[in-house]
């Protein structure tokens, strides 16, 4: 068996964590290169949230009551935390479609036949999506400012708190891409991953405090909305942005939104990363 033992082999990895990080970055780089070569995907990803900002601001703005105020400016300031949070969750569909496409094209088979870290294909993908989400948020924040959004409507502006809010948004988006990863591995076609990744996001993001005051919902729906993990991040952002319309509900996530947002996001990552990596290990196109 001399040819077998003497043949050039890949260098044996040092420590598993180092290998995992390195492999994830290789895959992340690959996905970022892809995204840069399909700019229309990034652009379409921007159009929807920008449309929401503009439509909600100008169509709903005049008729919404926020904390007893009917001022359109108050609604704009209330709305942005919701739109930001909704936008980051929509990264789910991109992650799912990307992974389903890799399965479909046989790339997952190739990766699985390589001596690479098991979770790296998915981690690399979710990291690349995180970069895209950050870019999207940046553009969206500029548009929001253009339509009149301002932080610190109570007079206090704290840059660190604003950055913390964007941090929570990115974490939420990252968590949701792991749900997308699991969806992508579970469906047969990229098309199914796109629609399957989006449909459930509508109830999740609308049965929440994102666009309306939960105080006006029927009690059972209100409870769902206030315990919705998504609502915790929205509330946390409103608090950190010092924007109007913060929920005064007694529900724990509404009273401790920053902690609730952190805990929910970390839990989602732990659960869905575990499930997705397990699914990946037995994945078959």
């Amino acid at each position, binding site marked *: *068996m001399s*040819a*077998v*033992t003497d*043949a*050039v*082999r*890949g*260098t*044996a*990895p040092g420590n598993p964590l180092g*290998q995992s990080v*390195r*492999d994830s970055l*290789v*895959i992340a*780089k*690959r996905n970022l*290169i*892809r995204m840069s*070569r*399909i700019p229309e995907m990034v652009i379409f990803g921007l159009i929807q949230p920008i449309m929401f900002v503009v439509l909600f601001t100008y169509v709903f703005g005049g008729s919404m009551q926020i904390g007893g105020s009917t001022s359109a400016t108050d609604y704009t300031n209330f709305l942005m935390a919701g739109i930001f949070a909704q936008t980051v969750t929509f990264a789910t569909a991109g992650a799912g479609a990307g992974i389903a496409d890799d399965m479909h*094209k*046989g*790339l997952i*088979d*190739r*990766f*699985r*036949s*390589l*001596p*690479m870290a098991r979770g*790296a294909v998915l981690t690399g993908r979710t990291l690349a999506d995180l970069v895209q989400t950050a870019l999207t948020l940046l553009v969206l924040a500029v548009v929001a400012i253009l339509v009149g959004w301002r932080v610190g409507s109570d007079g206090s502006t704290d840059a660190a708190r604003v950055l913390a809010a964007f941090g929570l948004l990115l974490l939420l988006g990252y968590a949701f891409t792991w749900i997308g990863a699991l969806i992508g591995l579970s469906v047969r076609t990229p098309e199914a991953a796109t629609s399957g990744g989006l449909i459930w996001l509508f109830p999740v993001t609308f049965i929440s405090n994102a666009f309306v005051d939960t105080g006006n919902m029927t009690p059972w729906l209100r409870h769902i909305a206030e315990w919705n993990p998504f609502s915790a991040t929205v509330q946390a952002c409103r608090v950190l942005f010092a924007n109007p319309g913060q929920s005064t509900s007694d529900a724990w996530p509404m009273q401790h939104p920053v902690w609730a947002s952190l805990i929910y996001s970390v839990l989602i990552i732990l659960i869905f990363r575990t499930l997705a990596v397990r699914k990946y290990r*037995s994945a*078959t*196109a």
Partner: protein
Amino acid sequence: MPGAIYAEGLVKTFGDVRALDGVDLDVPEGTVLGLLGPNGAGKTTAVRCLTTLLRPDSGRAVVAGLDVLKNPNEVRRSIGLSGQFAAVDEYLTGRENLQMVGQLYQMKAKDAKVRAAELLDQFDLADAADRTAKTYSGGMRRRLDLAAALVVSPPVMFMDEPTTGLDPRNRQLLWEVIKRLVSGGTTLLLTTQYLEEADHLAHDIAVVDHGRVIARGTSDQLKARTGGERVEVVVHDREHIPTAVEVLTGFGKGDTTVEEHTRKLTVPVSGGAKLLAEVIRELDIRGIEIDDIGLRRPTLDDVFLSLTGHAAEDKPEENAKETVK
């Protein structure tokens, strides 16, 4: 000591379908085994089990001296896989694809870069190296895919239908590449539906049908199992058929079969070209005019037919791909 690829009693079921029904394989180091069979015979499933992509329900497999079930990651370091689809990222350039695969084989970034450039040259892709794979022709993509499988010069290679869907010229090109590879000492397991391909590339052929290896041997050994060579004659005049039968049966090892409507007569023989010359002379002496005559060796298609009772053609998809969920 088992060969570079060794399998014993591999079984894999998907629902009701027994995709692998006890497959045994043994490929000595430095040789090529052709896994020959129609769609749905279990070829792809066998490759997937041997390359750690799929866990068999039972059985044992050893690749490059490593147990596939116990040390899958060690096995992955020693194998290259080129699948049924050209598994390259179409939005990356050829160079980027190869560098990525090299790094995922745990090569250092700069080694991966050097190796990628080497392979691009070797596979005649240097000119297209910095174009995205999306712009490549089918043949170029296959070559890139094969190059990706060879990044670490693995001692054991698996190729699942490497030339399916390629035009004859590209198929020929890929055959040359594969032959060069094997002459370098690589052990190769190759699946194919093309009997000609197995004949051309493989030292040994295992015929697979319904998840079992139903015959095994060199191409010549397998052909011999169908009864060896035969003489085929097409006579010009239907009235000459009885006389011709008499002549052929005189030379043959068995009965002469006659197809009346095509005026074609066939008889099993042994003796090769020399005998053929004698048959022609005798037919001439008897005044039988012939349109065509030839010595036919059995093709692997004949082999397949005689082994399985059905021709080597597609059956409804029973591919692992379709049924796994």
